């Protein structure tokens, strides 16, 4: 395996369409709940320990070879907001295109055939990481990091927040990111033994509620 493949997969310039999504930051900025670096940090921390943990566990479990169709159903059950399910599938489809071109694999092809409209992004991420020869922990880090890097870079655009401040937020979250990635891999190993019910289901009510409010806006900068 090549650990450097992780840098390719986690690179913000990897052409998977993530830049069009704010991870809920746009709605939180509009509601006044994110208004600077410290509220951005609290937002990212909450997202990391809920949606981030769930995504990281899904990705890690996919690397371990758990059936992606079952993981996709588990992701649906953990995503009550239809706007967020749609966004996750759109992102999954875009990632699938990029991943198939980068790391051609029969498993990616099979998943693309199974979900022509896209599987949940963390599931695709896991299968892509597997195709790239990465480990479960690599995919968990990638998913957990994306759960906070998306809102951070979106907030730079939404609030004209100093990019140095946004990057410092991500650096301060690094120790918690380590713990979330570890927990995600632990859960994924359990899933490989006992099934998808062992996946974490940590939820963030305001992320779900705000995603529905956001989807109803006539004009918005980000898709979600």
């Amino acid at each position, binding site marked *: 395996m090549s650990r450097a493949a992780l840098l390719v997969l986690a690179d913000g310039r990897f052409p998977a369409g993530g830049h069009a999504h704010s991870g*809920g930051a746009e709605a*939180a900025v509009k*509601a006044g*709940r*994110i208004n600077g670096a410290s*509220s951005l940090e*609290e*937002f*990212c*921390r*909450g*997202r*990391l*320990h*809920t949606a981030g*943990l769930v995504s990281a566990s899904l990705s890690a479990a996919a690397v371990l070879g758990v059936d992606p169709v079952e993981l996709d*159903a*588990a992701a*649906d*059950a*953990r995503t*009550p*907001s*239809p*706007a967020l*399910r749609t966004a996750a599938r759109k992102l999954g489809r875009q990632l699938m295109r990029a991943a198939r071109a980068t790391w051609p694999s029969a498993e990616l092809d099979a998943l693309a055939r199974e979900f022509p409209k896209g599987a949940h992004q963390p599931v695709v991420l896991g299968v892509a990481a597997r195709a790239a020869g990465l480990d479960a922990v690599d995919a968990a880090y990638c998913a957990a990091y994306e759960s906070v890097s998306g809102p951070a870079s979106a907030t730079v655009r939404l609030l004209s927040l100093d990019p140095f401040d946004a990057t410092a937020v991500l650096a301060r979250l690094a120790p*918690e990111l380590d713990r979330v990635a570890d927990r995600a891999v632990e859960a994924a190993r359990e899933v490989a033994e006992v099934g998808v*019910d062992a*996946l*974490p*289901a*940590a*939820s*963030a*009510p*305001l*992320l*779900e*509620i705000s995603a*529905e*409010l956001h*989807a*109803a806006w006539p004009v918005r900068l980000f898709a979600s």
Partner: protein
Amino acid sequence: MSGGVQATARILARADGRGGTSLPVLEGDGPLALRRTRGSGAEARVMLVGAMSGPLGGDHFTVEAVVEEGARLHVGSAAATIALPGQAKGEAHYDVRLTVADGGELRWLPEQLISANGSELYVSTQVDVGAYGRLVLREEQVLGRVAEEPGRLGSRLVVRVGGRTVLDQALACGPGAPGGWDGPAVLAGHRAVGQLVVVRPEFAADPAPARVLGDGAVIMPLAGPAALVSAVAPDALRLRKLLDEALVSLE
């Protein structure tokens, strides 16, 4: 471990063959007492009566209800449940296991769960509904009594319809919960959070449309014949108002 109270309550609802519902099992012990009250039409109505406050630290309560084919059951509670620290150290557990057969209907509408300062409670609710069963389930968590910091509260709600999981949702809040639980992504200072789950076979062909009910409440069609109302509010009263409005608009 602890010297807490272990208590179980059981309800079995059965179609009586004359268009009504009988309750061949209705038993509760210790702090979990059950009382049958006047139902309406085909529906049997049961009230969960807390004989003392709780659960306290170390307690483990379990409530099980089974609704058989063609039976209709409505379960409420006489008062809010308050999680308190108690004498015995350690966490308390409250498990709810509900089963609704095809053609059965359960309305599970208890009062709020209040997480008092210093308490530590983990609530687990698992519901299995047949593909042709019906469910209305409400859960409301209130973080702290008036002007009080909450205790540690963990909850997980799993709903399966026809053997398929349509909702799996956990919430962790209070001291010791993972960071950010009261921040802008999760609760943002709201002290009441609630869920209303509606399972209905008709939703398979004709799902409930997604709808915004205000800044703190939305109706969301789930991936399956079910809908979830998710709501946050500053207090229990306003939360109930939001969920009541949502229920009316779904019925």
